[in-house]
């Protein structure tokens, strides 16, 4: 893979890339500042805990959205990586005291597992791929529900964390205000890392494979490996979300592997817009806040949510992110004309 990932000698693309970096970094610092501001300005613990969960799911959505953006593939089974990550962290924590190591190993292990899986399944086209991932995810769901012993079967598993994790007190992970910041920084770091990755040749390559896989081979690239790598990265990002969730809630249940979780996150992805990296994350936050608001005011939240979902999808084909980008472009063009 390293051959594909290292950039060739300085060429036009690299010059462009070089000008991208400062922009990316300044955007990143803005994002970090926003996170800090939110965690300091929001006083209500209720809101904070809602936001924390939203950000954790935003990490999940980021992973799923990455797969959709770069591979053009829909997975209905990503909850597998989310839930499995939680279980592995939980089981690991009960076996050893060093949760930091466990988390890192879990994410790496899931990446490896997803990579191997992808080598077999990425050949399946279109929506059938979605159904296949659904089948694989559901199989694990059934297995975990049926199992006894450590995982607690259908009742779920409570995780006993040691007092310190990653050098922080475990309380920091379980208190909404601090956990919000931790998750937020993780989210920002992941978005940054992924956009840097897409700035290399890996970005256009995977995009081209998405568009026309056969032709990519005729311009001299193998296609299986990059697709599997996209899948693995997407699974790893999702696994980060799973680990954060386990740290925050101290509890995992088989339901976190259920396909409907993947379906919900897919809604977040499309709501936010999958053409940008950050769109799905925005979708997740909007989804959470909206759901909470509607759920509070009526028992008909399903119907209202369904109608709003349809409305948003119909009105903003490219999701919220698409709408924002469009608006930004307009403003830019408008001011350009004045100048």
């Amino acid at each position, binding site marked *: 893979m390293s051959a594909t990932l290292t950039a*060739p000698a300085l060429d036009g*693309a690299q010059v462009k890339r070089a000008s991208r970096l400062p922009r990316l970094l300044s955007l990143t610092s803005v994002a970090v500042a926003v996170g800090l501001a939110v965690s300091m300005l929001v006083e209500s613990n209720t809101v904070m805990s809602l936001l924390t969960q939203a950000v954790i799911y935003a990490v999940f959505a980021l992973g799923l959205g990455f797969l959709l953006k770069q591979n053009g593939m829909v997975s209905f089974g990503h909850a597998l990586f989310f839930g499995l990550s939680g279980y592995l962290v939980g089981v690991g924590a009960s076996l050893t005291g060093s949760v930091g190591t466990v988390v890192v190993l879990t994410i790496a292990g899931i990446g490896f597992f997803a990579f191997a899986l992808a080598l077999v399944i990425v050949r399946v086209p279109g929506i059938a791929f979605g159904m296949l991932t659904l089948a694989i995810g559901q199989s694990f769901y059934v297995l975990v529900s049926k199992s006894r012993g450590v995982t607690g079967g259908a009742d779920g598993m409570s995780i006993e964390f040691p007092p310190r994790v990653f050098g922080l007190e475990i309380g920091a992970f379980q208190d909404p205000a601090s956990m919000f910041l931790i998750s937020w920084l993780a989210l920002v770091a992941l978005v940054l890392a992924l956009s840097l990755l897409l700035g290399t040749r890996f970005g256009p*390559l995977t995009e081209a494979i998405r568009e*026309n896989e*056969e032709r990519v081979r*005729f*311009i*001299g*690239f193998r296609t299986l490996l990059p697709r599997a790598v996209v899948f693995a990265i997407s699974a790893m990002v999702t696994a980060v979300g799973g680990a954060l969730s386990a740290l925050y809630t101290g509890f995992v249940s088989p339901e976190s592997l259920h396909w409907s979780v993947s379906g919900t996150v897919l809604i977040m992805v499309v709501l936010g817009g999958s053409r940008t990296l950050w769109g799905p994350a925005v979708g997740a936050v909007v989804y959470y806040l909206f759901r909470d608001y509607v759920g509070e005011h009526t028992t008909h939240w399903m119907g209202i949510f369904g109608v709003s979902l349809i409305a948003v999808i119909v009105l903003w084909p490219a999701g919220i992110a698409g709408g924002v980008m469009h608006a930004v472009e307009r403003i830019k063009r408008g001011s350009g004309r004045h100048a």
Partner: protein
Amino acid sequence: MTMTYALEAKGLSVRYGGVTANDGVSMRIAPGEIRGLIGPNGAGKSTFIDALSGRRATAAGSVHLAGRDITALGVVERRLLGLSRSFQRTSIFPGMRIGAQMELAASKIPDADADEVMRELGLDRFADRHANEIGYGDQRRLDIALALVGRPSVLLLDEPMAGLSIEESMKLARHLRELARHWGVSVLLVEHDMEVVFGISDSITVLETGKLLAEGAPAEIRAHPKVREAYLGSAA
């Protein structure tokens, strides 16, 4: 071994179920040669290109690139060894910007310059457009441009002029000549535009129902009675 051919096919056969589309076709192309490949519709020309480029498995025969047996190699290896092709049914990356896809095509090949190819084929003004937003003829040229990147040693072109306006196909013909003469690129040119084929080919091969019908210099082929009857018609 007296001479190394840029590309040599020995007794290639390809079948689609019951249809034998290529039946023991042999061909040798010298470095810097432009070889025309003509024949009636369904003669097996595209199939031959598919077999040479590794897109379709062969039932018999072997393919050699600069003396090396590449029959067992896949599409990607063949391309990296310098065997490149275009498609009769346009095959591009519809949702990508043209500049980006050309750059990608160039990135795997040392010293390849995407901008130059785009300029030569008049695509530079589209660099920032998405490929599905340009006209059909421009898409056809993009398909060819993707194959030209990095000046491959052997170019297999499947009806590159189809869908191009007269000026564009003249320009492309000149460009192919230049590639062959100055850069020693060998070209296998499948084309139904007789003016172009007879105009730039060094020699011409004629296929009919999967078999070799004739081979020779353009003038010989033009005079060949069977070719005239089966293929050329009034274009002779």
